[in-house]
């Protein structure tokens, strides 16, 4: 980017290669300083939060300045040095819901070129029956050579593919070229300078927004698909045509003062749609909380049309006020599910789940997040799943995230925006259709090692289970695979033989791509799971998991929350060096600070002590 007309952007090329859901994206940008003096040139890129940067380099006057992944603490020392000498360092910032921004700047001599190359990798996650590749582009000026190229290699075959860009009108959509054959897709978008122009006589560019590719693969085998390359294997499991398991769901909804206004309106709207979408064989409960906990009915109710209609009227009349007692609300939900199960009111083969929706920190009843986590974990005792929707930025998302992970569930942040209703519905849609419970994927101990997680509490409709590992002997090219799970009526069992396919035969012209992608996919997945383990469990396990994640991040060159990428910039005229640092944000770092989280007209929130406390402190 540049605001100076004396800097010309020669080319912006985004090259994304997806091999069995593992996406490797390289963004290359070349700029020329046409001025007679040196100038600062900025490179700003937005990349998905789920991605790890793996490389960044700059080429200036024939010299390449390459990045090196280092342990974060060690990199900090260089950062400190840079800051104390008055230099700026590269920074990654959160941008919106899905992306984070990487930005650097460098001083470029007169009449010189600079080439920036950023590489990142991620495993595409299947959600609601599709994978999504999101590339955000916003060059600040017209670009001589602008190109986005995506190549997808999926040995299972591509079931459908859709590519579009938010900045393209229907007339310009044909600029996106797609070639899809059975196991391969090629998508390219390469507008000329004239086609980039906003209007015939202006310099503004239309290229500003998201380029999105969505696709899914064929699923013919119940066992799923197992791929073996170079001593590593990956198993994708999402069997077709499984009936859903019925569910018993307790909705625990925050109606404290901070939910008033738009948030509660959106919650009401979403709940109405969600209730309307319940299957008749499902059971549900509605529990509302502020400092008081109230339940629509004393036990779970079958989702008949009449009951749902009655519940919708109830939901429409939810009023807000008061403070936030998450602990007792969740415990009531657990007790209600337990009691109904004990009294055999619920179908035997069904799944119990609690969906908590809150926007703030607990400040009534038990307000210590760690104690709430302990209480909820003890009460649930592994018998049900807890999902949480954290509404807005003031919620302590990591508190919800850990609590859900401790209870076979997951948390999602709901961003305050006009589409919050849709976000709420979307999350519910993702988790509302369990197909299998307690899914175990088993591989022979004598054949494989260093497995990623191979037990999953649920498989949801539209999602996919991924397990990867290393073969003990890289000469092995087949082994037995078994999958067990609990289905709607019967137990689900399937077994089969994994065998290596010959990628050279499948993709004869591109075999060079496939040398180590499964190993990197395995490493990516292992690091993600270790980072998650670093958040829960006992201190010893946490420390071990974090140490392993750090080792692997360094070995595979991933910029994770434990590592930083350091690039030494060219020496300035006064001879000082100034490193650039690229880092990965944690969820907590993404949270914006604010003064409000949990407000209410003083009502009944409790302090840990009845002694008044007078404080002066800093933030």
């Amino acid at each position, binding site marked *: 980017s540049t605001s100076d007309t004396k800097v010309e952007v020669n080319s912006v090329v985004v090259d994304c290669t997806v091999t069995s859901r593992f996406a490797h994206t390289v963004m290359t940008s070349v700029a020329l300083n046409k001025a007679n003096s040196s100038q600062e040139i900025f490179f700003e890129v937005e990349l998905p939060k789920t991605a790890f940067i793996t490389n960044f380099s700059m080429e200036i006057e024939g010299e390449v300045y390459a990045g090196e992944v280092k342990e974060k603490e060690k990199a900090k020392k260089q950062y400190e040095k840079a800051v*104390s000498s008055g230099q700026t360092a590269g920074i990654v910032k959160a941008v919106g819901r899905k992306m984070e921004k990487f930005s650097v700047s460098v001083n470029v001599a007169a009449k010189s070129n600079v080439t920036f190359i950023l590489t990142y990798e991620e495993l595409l996650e299947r959600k609601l029956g599709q994978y999504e590749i999101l590339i955000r582009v916003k060059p600040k000026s017209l670009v001589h050579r602008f190109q986005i190229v995506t190549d997808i290699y999926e040995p299972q075959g591509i079931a459908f593919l859709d590519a579009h860009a938010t900045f393209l009108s229907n007339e310009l959509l044909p600029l996106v070229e797609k070639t899809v054959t059975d196991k391969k897709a090629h998508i390219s978008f390469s507008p000329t300078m004239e086609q980039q122009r906003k209007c015939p006589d202006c310099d503004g560019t239309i290229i500003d927004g998201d380029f999105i590719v969505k696709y899914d693969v064929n699923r013919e085998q119940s066992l799923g698909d197992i791929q073996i390359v170079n001593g590593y294997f990956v198993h994708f499991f999402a069997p077709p045509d499984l009936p859903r398991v019925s569910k018993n769901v307790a909705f625990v909804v925050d109606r404290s003062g901070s939910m008033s206004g738009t948030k509660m309106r959106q919650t009401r709207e979403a709940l109405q749609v969600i209730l309307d979408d319940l299957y008749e064989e499902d059971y549900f409960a509605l529990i509302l909380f502020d400092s008081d906990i109230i339940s629509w009915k004393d036990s779970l109710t079958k989702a008949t049309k009449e009951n749902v209609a009655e519940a919708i009227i109830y939901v429409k009349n939810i009023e807000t006020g008061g403070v936030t007692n998450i602990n007792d609300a969740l415990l009531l939900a657990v007790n209600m599910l337990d009691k109904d199960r004990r009294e055999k009111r619920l179908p035997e083969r069904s799944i119990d789940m609690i969906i908590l929706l809150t926007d703030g920190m607990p400040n009534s009843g038990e307000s210590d997040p760690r104690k709430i986590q302990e209480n909820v974990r003890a009460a649930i005792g592994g018998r049900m799943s807890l999902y949480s929707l954290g509404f807005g930025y003031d919620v302590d998302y990591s508190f919800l995230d850990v609590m859900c992970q401790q209870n076979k569930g997951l948390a999602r942040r709901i961003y305050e925006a006009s589409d919050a209703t849709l976000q709420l519905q979307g999350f519910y849609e993702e988790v509302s259709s369990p197909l299998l419970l307690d899914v175990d994927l088993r591989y022979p101990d004598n054949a494989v090692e260093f497995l990623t997680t191979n037990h999953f509490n649920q498989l949801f409709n539209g999602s996919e289970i991924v397990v990867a590992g290393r073969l003990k002997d890289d000469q092995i090219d087949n082994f037995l695979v078994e999958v067990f799970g609990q289905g709607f009526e019967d137990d689900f069992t399937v077994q089969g033989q994994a065998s290596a396919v010959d990628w050279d035969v499948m993709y004869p012209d591109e075999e060079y791509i496939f040398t180590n992608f499964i190993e990197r996919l395995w490493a990516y997945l292992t690091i993600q799971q270790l980072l998650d383990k670093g958040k829960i469990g006992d201190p010893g396990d946490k420390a071990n998991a974090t140490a392993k994640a750090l080792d692997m991040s360094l070995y595979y060159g991933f910029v994770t929350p434990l590592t930083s990428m350091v690039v030494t910039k060219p020496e300035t005229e006064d001879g000082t060096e100034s490193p650039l640092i690229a880092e990965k944000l944690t969820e907590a770092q993404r949270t914006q600070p604010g003064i409000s989280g*949990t407000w209410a007209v003083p009502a009944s929130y409790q302090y840990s002590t*009845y002694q008044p406390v007078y*404080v002066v*402190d*800093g*933030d």
Partner: protein
Amino acid sequence: PHFLIELPNRDDALCFNINDLPGTIFNLVRDPTSGILVNGQIIGDKKIPPNGKINTYFWRFGIIHRTLGVGLEVSTQDISVFQDRKYLKLLWSDTASIKGPNMDLLVTKDRSLTVTLKDSVKFVILLHKVWEKHPYHRDYLGFYTLDSHLFSSSVHGLLGQFYHGIDYEVTDLRPGEVPEKPDATMYVKGQALNVTRGWQRDFRRDVKNGENVPCWFIHNNGTGLIDGNATDYIVSGLF
């Protein structure tokens, strides 16, 4: 620094910020009857952060109990104790417990100092340690008065004036600049103030992250809530 007045009998809290130039010393507590004085000095960040906002924190407190003949100077570096002309220096890197006839001290390594002055007051000073090489921030202190019921009715100071409670009413809750941060009108000390519902952190149980305490935030250095102006509490020396 932020000031937080927790009022459990009203299930509520008040908060405000006071900032001034680094180096300024504020009087926090002054009780002429019992002879207790607490002053604190603020410092700023190591340099101006990129957002241009200068943050100040307390880094040094001077505490005197004239009747008991006790004095304390607590800084982010160390803790100096004076009692009956004796002088003792403690380090934050120690864990120490000292019981005297008039004063008990408990130092928890790199974390807190609890001071109990006989028949008068109990308070905790928290040490917030910042990464040594942090480009902007540095270590600072927090001051928590835990037991204030034996202060006399003449106690005053930025904190002391609240030791015997405060009467106020909050009405007219209305949307603020941000929908989730509503404004309201607070009637206090014969004035109507525009206040905002927010929170401030109490770090006693979790010195790193703190715990949020919802409070009514009084703008402009607590103007209207505190007696006079913040500048009225500036003093020339720590003791």
